């Protein structure tokens, strides 16, 4: 997955970001690509149930 320069430029304009030329965007890309790859890996990970209850062990948790 990659994000076109036009989209990034629109994000910068709309969200009052720091201006970057297209040449500068190429310098940012390696970090951006890493970010997108990591997000892609999370796509199928269910994070909804991440909460402290996961730490309970059977002998401590009891029955509800």
């Amino acid at each position, binding site marked *: 997955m990659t994000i076109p320069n036009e989209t990034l430029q629109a994000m*910068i304009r709309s969200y009052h970001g720091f201006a*970057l030329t297209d040449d500068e965007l190429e310098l940012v890309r390696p970090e951006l690509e890493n970010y997108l790859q990591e*997000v892609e*890996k999370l796509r199928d990970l269910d994070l909804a149930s991440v909460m402290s209850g996961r730490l309970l062990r059977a002998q401590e948790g009891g029955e509800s």
Partner: protein
Amino acid sequence: MADAALVTMTIAELAPKIKAKAISPVELTDAVLAQVDRLQPSLNSFITILPEQARRQAREQEAALMRGEYRGPLHGIPIGIKDNIATAGIRTTVGSKVFTDYVPEEDAYVVSRCKEAGAIMIGKENLEEFAAGSTSNNLHYGAVHNPWNLDHIPGGSSGGGGANVAACVTFASLGTDLGGSVRGPANFCGVVGLKQTYGRVSQRGLLVTSFNGDHIGPITRSVRDSALILQAIAGYDPLDPSTVPVLVPDFSALLGQELRGLKMGIPSNYYFDIIDPEVETAVRQAIAALEALGVEAREVALPSMQYAGALRIAGMADSLVTHEPYLATHRRDYGPTVLYRTLAGQFVLGRDYAKSLKVQRLIKEEYARVLQDVDFLVTPAAPVAAWRIDMATVVLGGTAYPVRGPGAGMTARCTSPSNATGLPAMSIPCGFTRAGLPIGLQLIGRPFDEARLFQVAHGYEAVSPSRQRRPTLVDAGYKTGSTA
């Protein structure tokens, strides 16, 4: 005592001699400043050197000793401070051009604690620009050089501290560690680096950093010295909400106790997945040495670590927000590697930031479970040994990994997880590559269980192939030159 004999001692060796007035803080400081003069041109490990102040502090500490006011094991010990830790009246550049003339009005909490303990500040140590990287190749203040091979990096971002401690320029350094910046330089320079539990040491006065996961920790030449420094800086700081009001134990209490009966976890995934064969061999040998000392080895799985890369997402956004005011006014003063790495953070979506925090929680829970079954974990401190300063990528297993600027992350993959979990972790030397560069072992412990880590590290230190070795340049200027 000859200068060479003085500067190569450890804090634990010096302290009783200083207390007994057999070694004078003034004599010791003069020996260290001579070492600074000799090696700064080669190492470039300081941004600011403080000879007059150091001599004044040494005279004050000597006078206190003569009055019978011994302040403990740091009394009269010359140390270095990383230049992103605030020092009253002394410029603190954060390795940047933006802060080149910044002079804080107050000392960081840890600096105050070290001064109260009688330590002598030799200078402010060179680092990566804004402590954002692992090479200490600083565009504004020059590259720091590894004392084992001057063509190689010392690691970063606390590279000046790692180089100084390894080269016997200082006896200890206070570094900072947001992703491995204490443990990395310690590893690459063949000394001991500690990132204690998050909340154990105040971060007040640590400049331009993230609220999530940064630590101030010691770099030393021995495990015992690491415990002594932590003893001086640990404790609840009511003005730093990140500190935790827990008991500060005697961190040296378990040193020398046998390791038999302890259980170590060897991760079956992640930490050994991307690794140089020479590093893996040394770390596996260290694990075998720990087993020979009576530690039971158990393989442990950390399946959530497949998502560890997502931890960086929150870091990207944090970094952007941290730098926002300076980018708005001083953008042209940034070097390109930090600038473009930081600006990528403006594209992180809030949804992904929140997911990153969820992954952090998931990983913390997994470590908490694993550490119910073992006392500590053993991993490499880094996948590779120190690379050449001029290298932009390092090849491992046929893949080229960037080691500077945007996209760099491989080099901290073994250390950064402990910044996310907050668990105590330390790097200790466990051998050398065929090229003579240090290799490090990482121990990861239970929360606030640093004393156990010190016990294990101290036990291993006595049998490590790195013991008693130091860079040849330490002794090169002395007629008594010896590397043993």
